[in-house]
């Protein structure tokens, strides 16, 4: 059989086509180049729009002016000026709002994910609740809790807690069926199954929810300040835009995103310590 195969198998000519391995351009160029390149391109477009005077300078300041404003704001922050005060207030609101959203979201997530009652009776209300335009509640919270920090913390919590519920419940439900059976066969109580199997298994999901919440908490705090006054970066944004100081608005938004990113990074850092057995998710640009 083998001899027949060699007899009828003429060796290929030297100029026969070769199945070449192709490395895509994306892989050949270091990823930093792509990252920086795209960023610069974005700035270029921005600068282009400003240079061609497609809009008025007042409505759209250029990258250079914005950068200047970011630097001078940094000066204000370092020397403990009014922006530093506002930043500190907003940070407090975000952190408290995030912590409250995490606790509330986790607790409700366990109820929804672990109990039949939660699944049948609680979850439909939560889904309906999530469809509400939550931002519209800001004035209500101000009316109830005043112009101080409380109404903003509640607003941040209010906007941020839902994803934590959904992800916690999904994480608990993701427990492998056979492993759940195994726990039952070992005589594990419901609490033991939750503690030793479902909760650890849900951690990657829970952290995904917490990351979403960390970003949402900033939105909630700023919306609260914006609509409910009383101080903070959101209040400064409102004042600056009324004065048509768009460059300052941009600078303030920059520092707001720093608050959100810092919280996001801290949550990601804790996740990598705790959930060591699980591959990081694609939004985790730090460890990628």
């Amino acid at each position, binding site marked *: 059989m083998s001899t027949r195969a060699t007899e009828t198998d003429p060796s290929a000519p030297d100029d026969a086509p070769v199945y070449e391995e192709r490395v895509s351009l994306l892989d050949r160029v270091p990823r930093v180049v792509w990252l920086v390149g795209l960023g610069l391109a974005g700035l270029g477009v921005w600068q282009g729009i400003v240079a061609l005077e497609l809009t008025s300078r007042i409505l759209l300041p250029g990258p250079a002016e914005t950068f200047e404003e970011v630097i001078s704001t940094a000066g204000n922050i370092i020397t403990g000026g009014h922006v530093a005060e506002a930043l500190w207030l907003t940070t407090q609101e975000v952190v408290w709002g995030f912590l409250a959203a995490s606790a509330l979201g986790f607790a409700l997530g366990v109820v929804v994910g672990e109990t039949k009652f939660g699944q049948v009776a609680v979850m439909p209300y939560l889904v309906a609740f999530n469809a509400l335009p939550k931002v519209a509640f800001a004035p209500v919270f101000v009316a109830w809790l005043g112009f101080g920090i409380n109404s903003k913390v509640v607003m941040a919590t209010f906007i941020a807690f839902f994803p934590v519920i959904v992800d916690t419940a999904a994480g608990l439900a993701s427990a*492998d069926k*056979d*492993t759940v*059976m*195994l*726990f*039952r*066969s*070992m*005589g*594990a109580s419901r609490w*033991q199954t939750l503690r*030793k*199997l479902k909760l*650890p*298994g849900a951690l990657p999901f829970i952290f995904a929810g917490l990351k979403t919440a960390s970003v949402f908490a900033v939105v909630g705090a700023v919306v609260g300040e914006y609509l409910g006054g009383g101080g903070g970066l959101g209040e400064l944004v409102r004042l600056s835009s009324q004065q048509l100081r768009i460059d300052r608005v941009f600078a303030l938004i920059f520092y707001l995103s720093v608050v959100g990113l810092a919280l996001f990074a801290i949550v990601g850092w804790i996740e990598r310590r705790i959930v*060591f*057995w*699980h591959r990081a998710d694609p939004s985790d640009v730090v460890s990628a």
Partner: protein
Amino acid sequence: MLRVEDLSKTYVRNDVHALDRINLTVKDGQFVSIIGASGCGKSTLLKIMAGLIPPSSGRVLLDGTPVLGPRPDIGMMFQQATLLPWRTALENVLLPIEIRDGAKAAHARSDLAVELLGLVGLAGFEKAYPGELSGGMAQRVAICRMLIIEPSVLLLDEPFGALDELTRERMNEELQRICTERQATAFMVTHSIAEAVFLGDALFVMSARPGRIVEVVPIDIPRPREFSVTTEPHFGEIVQHVRSRLDLGEQL
């Protein structure tokens, strides 16, 4: 002795008649293999025998007492190793003790767990996480986890289905040695006729759904068996016989 009497199971939710009047006996220290078409109710039977789900009618008796829920003297093993990825091999093995008697008791039995891991050729892997183990190694950890509470009955649901042929043969020899050593009663579901014949003292053939036992094939190959018996004519005859029964079962 493990007895199943007139056991039937219908899943009410989707009206699937999975098992139909199953009667069987597994004697103490006996190794019984069960084989049948996919979906004929083997896993269902195993779960009922383990007390994990109730039967629709009939009952399961272990040493004369009815099985009414999960029991500590029954050890289970599944097709997948089902290890907890956040626990080391050693911690996974100790899990059943931790659940039954608490973390302190589990810690006190570490030596036994280390010994078991050594027994299945995993010495030095105590601190490894499941993500760092191969499929066969993970399955061996699962065996240790089943054995640590010294169950008198082992219920195995395609325990080596996910393994490659060579590893599977080694695991079969391992399991035979462990069962003989401990005089454990074992009931194993498998899709491999060779595995069923190699390990079993008897082989139950199940019909397609609703699952019934259509034949009990005694396997009189002397123990301890080495994998070379699989090439002997007598082994081949039994395999051939089981195959013909299975085909018959499909037609029923």
